[in-house]
Every structure is written in C-alpha cells, then in structure tokens.
C-alpha cells in the first residue's frame, strides 16, 4: 500500500494568526505554530493501517514538498507505516493538482508493486481535492473518492463512499486508488515504540532525475492552472452582544431581539 501525505500549515491554528502577503500571493507561516501532516492524509494513513492490522502488508508513505521537517513527515512511520519516500526538491514545489500528481504518480511507479494507493480527500491548505483523481488517471487506475470505510475482501476493496444523505457501498478491483474523508474516524496516536523506530529510519529522497521526469512537467513549471491572486476576505465585525445579569435573562432578551428584528 502507498499513502500520499502532505506537510501543511496547521489548519487548527487560530484564524487570527492567518496572514497573506499580497505582494507575493503567499501565506505567511505563523510564528511558533509548526506544520502538520494534512489531517485527511493522516486519516488515509489510518485507513491503510487498519488494512495492515487485518491483512498484513507493507505501507510506503510518499511526501512531496520543500522544507519538509523530518519530525513532521515521519509521523506516519511512528503510527506504523514502514517506509518513507520524500520528493524534496525546489522543482517539485508550488505545483497544482495536476503537476503534483504527476510527480507522485511517477514516484509510485518507481516504488513498484502495490494494491492500494491512499490519499486524503483534499489538502488542508489549497483544498483542491484533485490529486487523488489525477494520480489514478495518470496510472490508469479506478478510484473511489471520499471514503469513510475501506476493507479488502477476496482481492477487492469494499469502500463506503460518503454521500449527501448517507453512504454508498462500492466494490472495486485491485489495484485502485482511494481518497479518505474525516468520517473514517480519528487517526491513531503514535506509540513510543513507533516514535523510536521512526527516529532511526532515514527517509529515501528522490529528485526529478531519480524519477526520470522533466522538471518542466512538475511543480510550478508543470501547472495547468495559475494562481492570479490570493487574498483574505474582509470580515465585518458587527456582532451585537446581548448581556444581562444572568444567562437566563440574556436568553430572554436575545429571543425578544430576534423577534424585534424579524429574524424569526
């Protein structure tokens, strides 16, 4: 099994710490808030680990980016994954869904044999939700996106796919690609043994030449969509707080207020 994991700015950081530099169209990383593995990707690792628990198998993690902090990208190893491959090179950086997926797909080919590829449903930074589908398209694989449960039975994957009013149960032959949603449940915590093991494990680092790809096809150079502008929407701070001596009195005042402004 292969799981693609992205290092992102912590999406749980307080919204007030979020800043955009309009001159560069880039996000200014907040001070003192370390990056994390994108939460859906952690849950993709969890999905793979549950299959490993039930059926065995080996899990290879692939992370793409620049400035990858070893403590961050090794977290899937400390959760129980086996190997870590880093596509770490400036040429890989700042791609769109397509050019990022292209590099990942070429790395997956180089890793070799696999039954399942897992990705998060979307990354917590650009919220694109395309890389999984693009990897599947490049590798000619079927994909099931936005999964809440994945099991392997008789050489097939049985996937529960989140729908607006419940879920669909879908069967797909292997190999296949699956993207994972938060409904799968929380990712497990690393164990002490896992953390010690991960410390000793050195990631494999691949450059564009290792994948045999033209740097013009990956990262910023390979983009099909260009970022024209990045900005923060202006919020109108205009909340009217209803106060009273007791919470119960405040509640009554709020109810009257809502009727007065015809919000009911």
């Amino acid at each position, binding site marked *: 099994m292969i799981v693609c994991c992205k290092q992102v*700015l912590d*999406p749980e950081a307080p*919204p007030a710490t979020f800043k*955009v530099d309009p001159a560069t169209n880039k996000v200014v990383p907040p001070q003192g808030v370390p990056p994390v593995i994108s939460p859906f990707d952690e849950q993709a690792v969890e999905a793979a680990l549950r299959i490993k628990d039930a059926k065995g198998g080996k899990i290879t993690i692939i992370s793409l980016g620049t400035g990858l902090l070893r403590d961050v990208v090794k977290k899937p190893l400390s959760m129980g994954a086996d190997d870590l491959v880093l596509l770490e090179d400036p040429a890989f950086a700042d791609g769109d869904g*397509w050019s990022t997926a292209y590099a990942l797909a070429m790395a997956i080919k180089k890793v070799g044999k696999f039954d399942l590829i897992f990705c998060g449903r*979307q990354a*917590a930074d*650009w*919220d*694109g*939700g*395309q890389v999984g*589908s693009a990897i599947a*398209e490049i590798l000619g694989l*079927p*994909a*099931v*996106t936005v999964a809440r449960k994945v099991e392997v039975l008789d050489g097939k994957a049985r996937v529960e*796919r*989140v*729908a*607006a*009013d*419940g*879920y*669909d*149960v*879908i*069967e*797909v032959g292997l190999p296949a690609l699956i993207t994972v*949603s*938060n409904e799968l*449940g929380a990712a497990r915590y690393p164990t002490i043994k896992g953390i010690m093991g991960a410390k000793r494990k050195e990631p494999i680092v691949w450059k564009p030449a290792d994948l045999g790809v033209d740097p013009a096809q990956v990262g910023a150079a390979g983009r*099909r*969509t*260009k*970022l*024209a*502008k*990045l*900005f923060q*929407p202006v*919020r109108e*701070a*205009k*909340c*009217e*707080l*209803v*106060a009273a001596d007791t*919470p119960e009195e*405040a*509640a*009554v005042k709020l109810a*009257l*207020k*809502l*009727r007065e402004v015809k*919000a*009911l």
Partner: protein
Amino acid sequence: MPKGVLVFAEVSDGKLSGIAAELLGCGRGLAAELGGDLTAVLVGSNVAGLAQSVIAAGADRVFVADDPLLADYATDSYVSVIEKVVKQAGPSVVLLGQTSIGRDLAPRLAFRLGTAATMDCVALAIDPATKRLMPTKPVYGGNARAVFACETEPQVATVRAKVMSPITPDPARHGEIVSVAASLEPAAVRTKLVQKVKEELKGVKLEEATVVVSGGRGIGGPEGFKELEELAKVLRGAVGASRPACDSAWIADTQQVGLTGKVVTPDLYIAVAISGSSQHMAGCSGAKVIVAVNKDPEANIFKEARYGIVGDWKKVLPAFTAKLKELLAQ
C-alpha cells in the same frame, strides 16, 4: 476554437437538481460574455423527459445520454459519456456542481480531457481582456480566497451550492435536444455500486431548512443535541453540527455543516458552543442572520455572528427555547 459554456445538469431524485439550475443561471451570463451558447449535458436513466426543464432553466442545447447503465453514478461511465459530449460540443468552459458526484467527476473528467479543474468555486468572472475564466475559490479552510486562471482548454470548474442564482424557468423557451449514445462496455466500468445507505435524520432537511440550530465541540455529548433538537423543533428548523461534534459521533455525519460537510443558507443560523473555525463558517456564512452562544468571548464565531450571548449554553438554551416557544405561540 472552443466556444461557449457546457453545464453538467445533475439529476437528483428524478428531478433537475437545484445546483444544475444555479449553474445554468450563471452559465447564461458567462456564455453571453464569451459570445457563445449555453449547452447542458443530462446523464442518467429515464432522464430524457427532463430535457425541456433544462432548456426552461436557460440552456440553448441539451445533450441527453439516457441509458440503463447510467442509472447509478459511476466515475468511469459518466466520465466516458461526458468526455464524448465535450468533444462534440467544444465548449471553452465546463461547469459542474460541488456535490458528491461533481467533486468526484470534475477532476477525473478534466484530466481525461488534458486540462485541469478549479474546485468549489464561489465566484466566476471572465477577464475582459483575455476572455479567460477567472474562478475564485476558498482555500486554507476558508481563511483565504484564491483566484485562478486555467491555461488549458476547456476550463473546468465546480461551483459551490447556493452561491449562484437560477433564472426564473420559462417553459416556453426553445432549445435543441441532441440524443447521445452512451455505448458503454459494462466491463469498462471498474467500480460496482453494491448498496446505497440512507442515514439522514428525520424531519426538515438541513439544506432546505429556513432555520438551522448547530452544535459544536462545546456541546460535550449526544445528550446536548437533544436540547438543540428541542429548539429546532420550536423553530421548525433542522439540527446541524460542526465537524468535531460529528467526529465524536454525537450526531450523524450527514448533519455536518462546513467545508467538507453541507453548505446551508437558512434565514437564521444559531451556532451553539461552536468556535467558528473557517472550515465551519464555509458551510454557514451564507445565512441571513447568524446567532452565537459561546462561553469564550474571544471565539471566532463572534466575528461572524450578528447577535450573540457570551455564556454557558446549558444555562442560556432552556430559557431561550422557552421564550421562543412563548413568542411563537402568540
């Protein structure tokens, strides 16, 4: 040269979906700016009868792929049929809804066509100089917005529900209906739908409710949601939740409001013990009036709400529900 706009007219429960009408409404304006026509594609089984309603909602031409093999959505079958229609119609812009089907279909279709998609857009503009589509989408969980330009053809985008306005349907509008042979090989569809499971709560549907009462992490357990249900019942509304509450299984996942849950646009949104993360606000910021109850005066929700009480919801809610019951009985 690619021309005009093509809309995926998604069908839900045997009817043209709301998002399809919204896309057709917005597609009309874009097609006029681009100097092309508005085409739609209708895919499914027994859907041919809906073609006239697609024209009434604004399409100049509807391609209809009606085949029993298309009854249920499968990525492979839908991508193959729509790819064929796109090649025949030659649009410059392809629009889909950011629905469970659209978010699966759009990227795969785009990559099959050798182009790329911009997902979950909340605004679509045409650059007057280049005549290229400039879609705006929320990024970083709603903390920022990005405007993209797609450099390949066709330019594919999915659009969030309820941000575009449909036109008033005109049953007398004329348009062309083109039938498309699906010509699917069953073996080419590599996924098999085994079962559809409905999990939605009884009562008013979240997406259609005029009042939504939502609870967050601070509710603390499933019992608290019973109190929210009580309030929702008084207001004839629906109960929603933020992601942490769903992840803790205090309420069904189908009730999640937010970036990865549902987008709601009620007249009144009551956020109880919700901090108001950008991810959550992405699902409810279209509400006319947001009311917040939270014990933390610094909570982000007070930057988004119109009215609020800083206090413990356990003390506020019973009195609030009782007073509203009294007011609404008058």
